[in-house]
């Protein structure tokens, strides 16, 4: 099996040039690549376009990269939990493209599946439809949406093997497998890196063919946005 292992996050992201297009996995703070985000902060790379469902919070996740002004443009579906984001958006420092969540997911899936465009009903009759081709199928209107691909896709998995096969846990899966398939270079950080043969081939979520670099992360904080318990 091909060995994709790199030493750590710094090595995994060291060749990301300024002005790259990145995809970063996660929903809210669940399933985000914490180690790679920390390494990107250390690297100082800038002018980034980040495709991610959310933009983190002020002091965690992609929010940290906004604070250091490394992000030029965000492509997301929901950015509501981040004051610094809102400030940069209203002042015009940050470019933002908001996309319906299902359309965002499918555009990334399409990018990873070699499908340049598809039609979806989401956004018909709204400002999301501006400038897009609309077409009727079986009496209902749909918008044409195009694929999304990234120079670097950065994902977080629960377990991975040295050849890049990945398994996610709980709702930390979310956008990660889609993004893993849509990167020119895909970097995976995992909580547990195992030798080939240890993961059950029946249970692999992301086949190793999509993954170029893998490493075992450390010190996962897994911060919770809305800690809610039963009364």
């Amino acid at each position, binding site marked *: 099996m091909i060995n994709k292992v790199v030493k750590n996050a710094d090595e995994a992201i060291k060749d990301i040039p300024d002005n790259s297009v990145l995809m970063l996995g996660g*929903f*809210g*703070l*669940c*399933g985000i690549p914490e180690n790679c985000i920390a390494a990107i902060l250390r690297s100082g790379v800038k002018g980034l376009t980040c495709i991610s*469902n959310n933009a983190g919070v002020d002091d965690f996740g992609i929010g940290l990269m906004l604070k250091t002004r490394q992000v030029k443009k965000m492509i*997301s*579906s*929901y*950015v*509501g*939990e981040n004051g610094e984001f*809102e400030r940069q*958006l209203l002042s015009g420092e940050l470019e*933002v493209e*908001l996309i*319906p*969540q*299902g*359309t*965002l*997911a*499918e555009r*990334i*899936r399409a990018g990873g599946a070699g499908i340049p465009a598809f039609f*979806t*009903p*989401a*956004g*018909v*009759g*709204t*400002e*999301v439809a501006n400038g897009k081709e609309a077409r009727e199928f079986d009496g209902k209107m749909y918008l044409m949406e195009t694929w999304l691909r990234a120079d670097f896709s950065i994902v977080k998995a*629960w377990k991975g093997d040295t050849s890049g096969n990945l398994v996610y*846990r*709980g*709702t*930390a*899966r*979310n*956008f*990660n*497998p*889609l993004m893993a398939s849509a990167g020119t270079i895909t970097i995976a950080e995992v909580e547990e890196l195992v030798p080939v043969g240890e993961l059950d081939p029946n249970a692999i*979520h992301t086949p190793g063919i999509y993954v170029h670099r893998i490493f075992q992360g450390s010190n996962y904080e*897994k*911060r*919770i*946005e*809305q*800690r*809610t*318990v*039963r009364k």
Partner: protein
Amino acid sequence: MLDKIGIAKRIAQEVKDGMYINLGIGIPTLVANYIPKNMNVVLQSENGLLGIGPFPTEESIDPDLINAGKQTITMMPGSALFNSAESFAMIRSGKVDLTILGAMEVSELGDIANWKVPGKMVKGMGGAMDLVASAKNIIVAMQHCSKEGASKLLRKCTLPLTGLRCVKRIVSDLAVLDVLPLGGFRLLERAPGVTVDEIKNATEGKLIIDGEIPEMVII
């Protein structure tokens, strides 16, 4: 007049055995608490879960298990996990039987606005546009009027739209209303202690009143 819990309790009466249901953030999330225990329904969370369970105990909190509102949750026995594209595939293809979500405005044609207030709030639409474009049955939980007393049930929405002609039923703090296919809010029930005249005054869009309007029963 209903409070948030009253609205959630009334919407829970719309749930039928065997339904797959997507609950939005806010009042819709509360609906789960009032679904009768003997009913078998499955709650879908668009971040990738069928089978949302109750909130966890302090000991069983798992940061890898959250709902679309980013709250910690548990899974019911028989749950299934999947990625975000698969989640919206089941939504888009009409597999989810009932969608319950909040709204800032609804028009008499069933248009809904709930994602943006120009110049004030730009948080993004999240999954709302996908949900309203594809759901078979959409119930909206909302306040009938703004804090300033302006009607939110309008002839035409003033805020940027989330979706066109999609809302089927509204449960507000004042009433239960259906949106008719050719337009208009048909009054079905009054909230406890609320008169038809009060509902008339609070509804800017076309209100259709047929015969006696019963007061809703909330247990």
